[in-house]
């Protein structure tokens, strides 16, 4: 190994290349490219260049997400209806289940909590599920085109987000009919959705990269995701969790954000500072860990697929 320094993909921008008489079209990038490829051990590529490329190719992530949705019939009436009916039915089933376990003591307020929590949870788990497949299923593209691979899991999060949006339409009437407070505090939902997206992206990148090395993770993932739902404050209120299980709530990256989510939507006040702090900490830790793991590994994907 001649060098331990990370593979340097430098781009020196050095003015326009010689005019090309045959090219009728104006080139968008009048900058010429200069690349140097050198060996690397597992390590990070130059972050500045990487982020720049990522940004240049963001359209790819949008288009990939759009294509995926089209394949899932998102644009048809039935496709949309299914995206609404499916989570609604699940919410009702879980409601009846919990209500039976609680001897019929659960009111409409709890239904609102359950639906909101379930929809947020599905946003995250849908992201992770789609992201985990994103790299493995793009084999040919990865073998033939150099581009920041992280666009693949990020696009999956975007797809899941678009599938999450219609569920808001179900939640709004439930919220209103349960007589839950409406006010400026509801604006807190926006940063909280962003937090969910960060958690989803972090875990999604981890899952996508891990899947390259261990293909059978695909069969473990549904179990992991189901357990994740059960240890999250969705089927119960966070404050109902007994003292001895509190640690689980804190160690669950979705524990704090879902608690905050319910505080805003159900209790009708801004999330408490400690819950918000913990949510943010988890989101940042997962995002950084996921990005570092994925990006430091991604140049190896081409030889592993």
């Amino acid at each position, binding site marked *: 190994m001649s060098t331990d320094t990370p593979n340097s993909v430098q781009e020196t921008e050095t003015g326009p290349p*010689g005019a090309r008489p045959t090219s009728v079209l104006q080139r968008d*990038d009048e900058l010429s490219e200069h690349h140097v*490829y050198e060996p690397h051990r597992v390590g990070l590529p130059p972050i500045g260049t990487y982020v720049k490329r990522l940004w240049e190719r963001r359209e*790819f992530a949008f288009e990939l997400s759009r*294509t995926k949705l089209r394949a899932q019939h998102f644009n048809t009436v039935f496709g949309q209806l299914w995206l609404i009916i499916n989570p609604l039915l699940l919410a009702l089933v879980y409601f009846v289940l919990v209500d039976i376990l609680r001897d019929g003591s659960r009111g409409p307020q709890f239904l609102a909590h359950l639906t909101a929590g379930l929809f947020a949870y599905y946003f995250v788990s849908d992201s992770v599920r789609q992201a985990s497949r994103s790299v493995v299923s793009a084999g040919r593209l990865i073998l033939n*085109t150099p*581009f920041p691979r992280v666009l693949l899991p990020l696009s999956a999060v975007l797809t899941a987000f678009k599938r999450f949006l219609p569920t808001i339409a179900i939640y709004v009437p439930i919220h209103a009919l349960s007589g839950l407070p409406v006010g400026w505090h509801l604006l807190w939902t926006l940063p909280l959705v962003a937090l969910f997206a960060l958690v989803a992206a972090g875990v999604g990148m981890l899952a996508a990269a891990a899947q390259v090395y261990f*293909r059978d993770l695909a069969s473990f993932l549904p179990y992991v995701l189901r357990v994740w739902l059960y240890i999250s404050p969705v089927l119960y209120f966070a404050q109902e969790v007994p003292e001895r299980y509190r640690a689980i709530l804190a160690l669950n990256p979705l524990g704090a954000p879902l608690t905050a989510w319910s505080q805003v939507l159900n209790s009708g006040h801004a999330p408490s500072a400690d819950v918000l702090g913990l949510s943010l900490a988890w989101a940042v830790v997962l995002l950084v860990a996921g990005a570092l793991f994925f990006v430091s590994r991604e140049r190896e994907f081409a*030889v592993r697929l």
Partner: protein
Amino acid sequence: MPSASEGPSIAVDRLSVTYRTSIERSPTLSGTLLRLGRRQRTVRTTQALKDVSFEVPKGTVLGVIGANGAGKSTLMRTVAGILPPTEGRIEVRGRVSTLLALGVGFNRELSGRENVVLGGLAAGLSRRRLQDKYEEIVAFSELEEFMDMPMRTYSSGMYGRLAFSVAVNMEPDILIIDEALSVGDARFRRKSFEKMRELCGQDRTILLVSHALGSIRDLCDEAIWIHRGELRMADEPDAVIDAYTTFLDVGEDAVTLEDV
């Protein structure tokens, strides 16, 4: 800061590439754990390129020949920045487009149109530019009626035509074509050969990998011969092809048979 117009388009310096392949058909966690328990080796290494050095001046059309498994495709992927070198260094000046370029056909469930658009965006084209290019690509491939069909319904010739059309219509600074000339029927082959001749006449660096030695002879300014991962020869196309055919002991007949 070095200027892009200085120096060769591609400089490959003592390049070696080693693949590390898992011996399992597809790597699994349970398989890895089992084998770790039994203390078995889980990876096999293949040295696909050994100590290869060469330079390609700007505007040169370089033919790359060699037997199956010699390492030609590996070399192309390394130059395109897809595979990292295990040792050595590659310097590339200009934007590269690989054949099967743009990963066309990366998802066979998607339509031809979706594959072309996604591949183009992944390769860094802007939407506007892609729109212009799209028309040219479809016109060249003559696959208008099939663009909205899933690519799994394409015949392999149609598949190859679309891939070739994408590759040659991208106007990269450096074009890499890995065995694309022999796709399609006789008419499309003539057409793609004409297109290649046109591209080769322009001031563009091209790497052409082909087993059709006749086209290498006609199109290229220089040629290299890769044998089992090593650079066996780099010279005028005629000299390299003569040496190669002598080595293979097939004679000119076999060569002309597969000509475009």
